[in-house]
Structure formats: C-alpha cells, structure tokens
C-alpha cells in the first residue's frame, strides 16, 4: 500500500489536532487579490483561512469566509469543496467564519468570492478526499488504487465494501497531508453545475434566519442616532432633558465615529429609542457643506468632463489606418448619486468590554470593522471578535464600517451590549453613495460607416470612505483607471481609442455600490456605441459584432479583454431574442454588452413598450452570459434576475439629490426601486464553458440601463443621456 502523496512541510493544508475523532483540516487559501489590487502576502507559518471538518457521524462542515448578502456564497462555496471531496451534499453544513480564528481575509466584494476561492477550495476538498481514501485502503489492507470515493463514502471496487466518511474521519486525521492532490475533470462533476437550492432557504422561509437586526443578547439595549442633517455637520449642543423622560430611555450620548456625527438615544426597546429620539433637542453646527447643491455639482461634473483629463488609455493608430471621420458626434452622459437601499437598514450589535469585545454585524468587511474598532476603543485587535450575521442586502454598502464604529462607540459609553438601529430615513440619507459622474463622449465614423475615433472622458469622484488619494495617486493613471471600469477597458476595436478621467471632489460620502464604477461608464459607452451605429446608418448589433474579433484578446490596464467571449454573448442574446423579428407598434429593442472587470461577459437584449401618455414599460430582458464554469445555475440566474431589477431601478427613478448639504430622499416613496408589477420577463442563456469561474454578483448590473435606453431610443427616437429616465408629466413624470 503505497501512498503517492508526500508530505510537504511547506504545505498550505494541515490536519488540526482536536480531542474528538474528527478529521479537521485547516487550509491556508492563498487567495490572490485581483490583478492590480495587490497580491496576498505569502503566509508566515500556517495561517488557515478555511476549515473543513468531518465528524464521526459523517457530517461535513465547511467554514465559509465570505459574507452572505444574497449572492448565495454560503451555498456555492461549499459546493466547490463538496464536489472534490465527493461528499454527500445532504450531509454538508455551513458555519460562518468569525474574525480572530486566523483567517486571512473575510472581506466580500468585487464579485470575487468564487473566482478567488475556486482553486483553493477545490484543493481543500481533494486533499481531504485523498486522505479518506488512504484511510479506507489502510483499514482494508488493500491497494488504494482499488478504492474510490463517492457520495460520502469510500468504496473498495473489487469487493463492494464501503466505509462512510464519518467512520474514516479519525483514521484519516492521523495521516500525513498530501500535496497537489488530483483535481476532478469537469466532465465528471456531479455537484458543480447542478441546481442546488440555497442552503439557508429553510431558515429564511420559516423566519428563523438570523440577520443583524435579529441578534439578541442578555441585557442588550437598543439605540438609534439623530445625525447631522447636513453632510459633515457636527453637534453644537444638545439637551437630553425631554428625551430622558421618554419611557424606556436609559441614556443619551454623543456619537462621532460614523459618517455623520450625532446623538444616540439608548433605550429598553427599539420603539422606546425611536420615541426618545423624537424628544431630543440638538443644535447643529452645519459646517462647510450647508451650501452644497447637488444640481450645481451636476453642472460642475458636466463642465469638468470637457476639461483636460488624466489619460487612462490611448491606443496607437496603426500606420496606414485612415482616421478621417466623415461624420463626428458628441454627447454627455450623466449618472446621479445612488443609494444602496438595502432592505435591512444598517445596524450592528456591539458589546465593548476591557479585554474582550464582541461585534455582531451584517457586514461585508469584518476584518476592517475589527481593525477600525480596535483603534476607536484603543484595545488590541486580538481582543475583538466580529461575528458575521446574514445580511439583508449588501450591494457594497456593508463594505463601509461606519455602522459598526457607532455601535462600538455607544456600547463603550453605556458599558452595555447595544444594538444600534438605523431608521429607513437614516439609511437613505446618511450612508455612502455611488458617486455621481458625467461621461463626455466624442466619436466619428468614416465614409464607409466604420468608427475611426472614440474618446470617453469621465468626470467623477473617488470612493471617499476609503480615504482620499495621495498626491502621487492623484496624478496617476493607474488610480483613475481603477475608478473607471467600463471606460478605459472599452472592449471594442476602434482606431485612435482614447479615455481619460477628470477628478472632481465633493463632500458627499461615496463608496462601493453594486458594480462599483462600471454602471455609469458602461451606460455611456454602450449608449454611445449605439449613437455611432445610427450615425453610420448601421444596425447596432451588426456594428458591435464588426468591432469584435472572435480570436482577439488584449490587455486594458491590468484587465484581460476577450473579444470572442463578448462577441458570443452579444450574438447569443440577439439570436434568442430574435433580434430581427418585428415588434408590436410602440415597442423598441436595444442591446448592450459588457466585459465586467476583465472577467464575466454578459449581454442583454431589452424590449420596451411605450404608452400613449409617454410611459415606458420594460417588457422583456434576454440575457446571455459567459462566466466560465457555472457552480450553481440557480444562483447565476438569480444574480441576473436581481441585477436586472437593480439596474432597472436606476432607469425608472433611482436618484439621490442633495440640497443645502442635505439628502432629499428618505424612503422607497421618493427613492423608488422596481416592484413586482414593473419586473420584465427575464430569459437567461448561459454559455457552456470549461474556463475557471468568474463572479456574478455585479456583472449583471452595468449593461441593464443602456440596453433599456437603447430600446427606448428604438421605440421613440428619444436618446436618454441622463438617468433616471424623466417621464413626461402625462406619464407621472416631471411637471
């Protein structure tokens, strides 16, 4: 019985000794950052960041290091492990990693949970599988080559003997850990690529899943904060007399650690805190932003888009290429500030104590919470544990940590566990926002209708919650490239293509939002491609396909653009939507595609109808996507359905406006998001692939708006260059 796998002292996987008879493997997953975002440093010693545990009863426990924000990671990541492990999926359970266990990175963002964990998680499952097979072979005293793993057991093929993983766990835990275990051929997958319902489905439909707001601790108080209505304002003075007489109110304390300063009311119940807040008397120092006007800023962005830009890409024009435009056009595309409007408002539970602090947060950034809370409460990070709860939506909002800092600040002040809850109005007004931007487009086509010039200049802001750029960054093309996905990574072949960025600072807190920088840039790019096609008198689909070479791959900045994959999804979406089929009167059809962050390729054909009153209805969205190997088709389709809803909300009315330094919106009444009766019919076509999987959380969003506005143009002849669409008064729009 030879074991082909030699132990490597530098291996990234180790058996963890436990007192129980379980096989517990700790994995250091060398999860690389995305290109251009800094690589993960090599581990010093052994720093596990995932655990796989097999108990004697056969239960397989996978510790998930990514936050569940609706994208299904608590199902899809374990599926990858289970596939290589040859686990019985019905015996797989999930635990959520907390900080303080030595995990390397718990942050969730950038549509990178699958792409970044693909190889490490497969290796993890395969390693355990090989150890279990070796343990079975040893138990039977047979050649391990005659044994195989299947569905939670090892089978000895010649005799049909079978031992369950639970029975083998203890023996396997005493074996040396192999390196480079063989990975399965994708054609033999039985879990990956199959529809697996969400592992949290049952707790969700019975109301027992624990979201942040559902955390309850003994002695926990409830708090809510009255924040400065003006961005950047401060508390000048406050009087708690009336609030303290409000029933159930226990304390009133100032708070300054979040995005907006304010005064917290701490009470025995949520309602008592809300009522107590109404009784607070606070005088504000509005600070320097009381005159900030969103409309003036919008004009400033538009003007700035004409200014001299930092060049983010400039393609050389091949010798002999004609760049004489027979027809030139120009246009500016505008994108407003956007809120995340997660259905679960921001909240956090903190229990700050000397030497032991615990935080429960619906968050995408537990590591950052730990680091920032440590600095705030002046305690070592090692004394702080962040528990990640289920999140009622994320969309990048929970990559901020302001809500957790506030909770820690209040808990420290009142020396009690506290749940800080944001009202809907707080959430709509006092978070960070998708930055507003303007994209200035110029382009030309030659006498034959081929594009011969393209320039896209984005004017916008950096993500301020992560701090301002250094002087060196401010002057760097790399920094602003990263702030304009969808602009500099233009996937089309156009001679003389040039892109640029004009930084425009604002006092508005800005940060990640679903698809980060891409929605505004992609809206402008895919709309303007349409404009150029029409200027050339060509069909928008045929025009796009003519600019994409099936065999061409190139690098834009650090991103890899595969024209063939984009071409395929555009062609597939068009075919499935029957691009040339005649539509009913008043209907229009539009197409848009995108290569998201150098990875997932996705295209839509949108069909929209217009009413006599000018109202617009999106009837149908046909999607084609290439995201490499699909882990869970149900999950991929869910992200597309949801991405369409998210993108449509920016078309129908989503817009944060600011007057006198104050956000004007306060709820779903004035920040509309799409509802059941506005949801179009969605059809999804996935391109089969054996390429490594790429993300699906964000890629469905950017092409939604341009596909729809291109359809509106097709239906009405009206080109939408500013979101959201402003309907005529007759259709309930602007008077």
């Amino acid at each position, binding site marked *: 019985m030879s074991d082909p796998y030699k132990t490597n002292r530098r291996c990234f996987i180790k058996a963890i000794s436990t007192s129980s008879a379980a096989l517990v493997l700790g994995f250091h997953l060398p999860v690389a950052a995305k290109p251009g975002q800094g690589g993960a440093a090599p581990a010093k010693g052994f720093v596990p960041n995932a655990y796989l545990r097999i108990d004697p009863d056969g239960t397989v426990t996978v510790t998930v290091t990514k936050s*569940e924000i609706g*994208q299904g990671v608590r199902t899809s990541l374990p599926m990858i492990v289970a596939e290589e492990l040859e686990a019985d999926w019905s015996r797989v359970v999930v635990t959520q990693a907390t900080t303080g266990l030595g995990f390397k990175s718990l942050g969730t963002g950038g549509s990178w949970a699958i792409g970044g964990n693909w190889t490490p998680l497969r290796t993890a499952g395969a390693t355990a599988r090989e150890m279990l097979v070796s343990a079975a072979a040893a138990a039977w005293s047979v050649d391990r080559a005659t044994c195989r793993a299947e569905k939670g057991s090892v089978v000895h093929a010649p005799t049909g003997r079978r031992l369950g993983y639970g029975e083998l766990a203890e023996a396997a835990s005493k074996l040396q850990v192999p390196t480079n275990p063989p990975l399965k051929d994708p054609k033999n997958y039985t879990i990956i690529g199959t529809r697996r*319902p969400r592992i949290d489905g049952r707790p969700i439909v019975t109301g027992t899943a624990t979201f942040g707001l559902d955390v309850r601790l003994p002695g926990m108080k409830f708090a809510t904060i009255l924040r400065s209505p003006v961005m950047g304002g401060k508390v000048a003075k406050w009087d708690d007399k009336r609030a303290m007489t409000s029933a159930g109110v226990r304390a009133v304390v100032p708070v300054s650690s979040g995005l907006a300063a304010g005064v917290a009311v701490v009470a025995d119940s*949520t309602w008592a805190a809300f009522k107590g807040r109404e009784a607070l008397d606070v005088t504000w120092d509005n600070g320097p932003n009381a005159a900030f006007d969103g409309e003036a800023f919008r004009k400033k962005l538009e003007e700035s888009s004409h200014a001299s830009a930092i060049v983010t890409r400039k393609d050389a024009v091949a010798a002999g290429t004609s760049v004489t435009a027979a027809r030139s056009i120009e246009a500016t595309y505008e994108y407003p500030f956007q809120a995340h409007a997660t*259905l679960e408002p921001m909240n956090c539970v903190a229990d700050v104590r000397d030497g032991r602090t615990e935080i429960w947060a619906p968050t995408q950034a537990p590591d950052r919470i730990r680091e920032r809370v440590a600095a705030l409460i002046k305690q070592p990070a090692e004394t702080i544990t962040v528990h990640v709860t289920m999140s009622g939506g994320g969309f990048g909002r929970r990559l901020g940590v302001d809500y957790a800092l506030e909770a820690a600040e209040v808990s420290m002040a009142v020396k009690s566990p506290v749940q800080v809850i944001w009202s809907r109005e707080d959430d709509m007004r006092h978070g960070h926002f998708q930055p507003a931007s303007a994209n200035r487009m110029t382009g030309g086509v030659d006498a034959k209708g081929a594009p011969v010039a393209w320039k896209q200049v984005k004017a916008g802001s950096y993500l301020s919650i992560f701090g301002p750029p250094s002087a060196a960054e401010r002057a760097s093309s790399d920094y602003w490239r990263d702030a304009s996905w969808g602009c500099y990574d233009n996937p089309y072949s156009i001679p003389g293509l040039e892109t640029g960025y004009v930084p425009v600072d604002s006092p508005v807190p800005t940060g990640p939002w679903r698809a980060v920088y891409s929605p505004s840039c992609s809206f402008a790019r895919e709309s303007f491609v349409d404009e150029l096609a029409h200027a050339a008198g060509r069909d928008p689909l045929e025009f796009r396909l003519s600019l994409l070479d099936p065999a061409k791959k190139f690098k834009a900045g650090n991103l890899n653009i595969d024209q063939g994959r984009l071409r395929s999804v555009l062609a597939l979406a068009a075919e499935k939507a029957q691009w040339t089929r005649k539509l009913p009167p008043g209907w229009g059809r539009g197409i848009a595609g995108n290569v998201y962050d150098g990875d997932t390729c996705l295209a839509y054909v949108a069909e929209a109808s217009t009413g006599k009153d000018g109202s617009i209805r999106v009837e149908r969205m046909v999607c084609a996507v290439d995201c490499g190997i699909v882990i869970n088709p149900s999950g991929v389709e869910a992200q597309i359905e*949801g991405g369409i809803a998210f993108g449509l909300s920016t078309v129908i009315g989503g817009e944060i406006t600011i007057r006198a330094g104050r956000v004007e919106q306060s709820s779903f009444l004035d920040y509309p998001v799409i509802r059941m009766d506005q949801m179009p019919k969605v059809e999804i076509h996935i391109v089969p692939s054996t390429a490594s999987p790429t993300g699906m959380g964000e890629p469905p969003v950017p092409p939604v708006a341009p596909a729809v506005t291109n359809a509106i143009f097709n239906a009405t002849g009206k080109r939408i260059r500013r979101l959201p669409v402003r309907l005529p008064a007759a259709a309930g729009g602007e008077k």
Partner: protein
Amino acid sequence: MNENLIPQDGLRLTVNGTQRPASAPPDTPLLWILRDVLGLTGSKFGCGLGVCGACTVLVDGEPVRSCMSTGPEVAGKKVTTIEGLSSDASHPVQRAWLAEDVAQCGYCQAGQIMTAAALLARNPRPTDADIDAAMSENVCRCGTYQRIRAAIHRAAAEMKS
C-alpha cells in the same frame, strides 16, 4: 406624563394561536411588540412607513403592515407571523418558495410569503395581474420577483390538487 407612554400591562395578544401578555406602551407598533417583547424576529423592519411590506403579518387572515398597527388595534384578533405559518416549512407557500429557490438575501421574504399566503387564501387561482395587484406593495431589493411569481403559481397548483 403622556398617558400614551404608560405601559399597558394588561395587553394580551393572540399570536400564532397562543395568548401572550405583551406589555408595551399603547402606541407601540405591533412589529416592535413582536420583535422586542415577544421575541418573534421573523417579521422584519424595512421602513416603518408601511411602504415596503417586510413586516407583513396576518390579522384574522388579512395581510397587515405590522409597523403601522398597534397592540390595542389587534387585541382580540388572531395574529399570524411567519413563525406561525408553519415552523417546519410545510405550508404550501413555504414549500413552493423552497422549490423555486426564491430567496436571495431573504430579508423581505417573510413579508412576501405572508402576503402571498393571504392572496392564495382569498384567491386560490390568481392570474399574473392578480399577483401584481397583491404583491406590488412588497419591495424585494434583490429582485426575486420572477421567482415569487412562479412560486405563487406553484403553490396555487399544489393547493388545488
């Protein structure tokens, strides 16, 4: 002292078939009685304004925004929350929700399920238009609407057979 703020100690509510004491000031929304007094956290806070539907419960079988009604208003009536629909996910609507793999983040789903259960109780065979009319006051920011629609049709078919 404002008499609205005096805890109403005598308040008893019938929630999920059980009579329970629910001491809270009389202006306390039912949502916060359920969540903070009775420990039933399945009904969610989304807006506190009656415009998102996350807090929907059934009162004598009718869908009600629990953030907009108070304890005294529902005293003597039967309140059903997601926890009372069935604790083992055996209600046809819950089963359909699992079969269609509806949930993304899941936060709005209790309200969606309660609204759908009420719809099916009064209209066993809803059309798409009926579903639009009944469900369009419930926000799903993740955008699971297509699957909610499919799940309601599935539950309707199952309840009829």
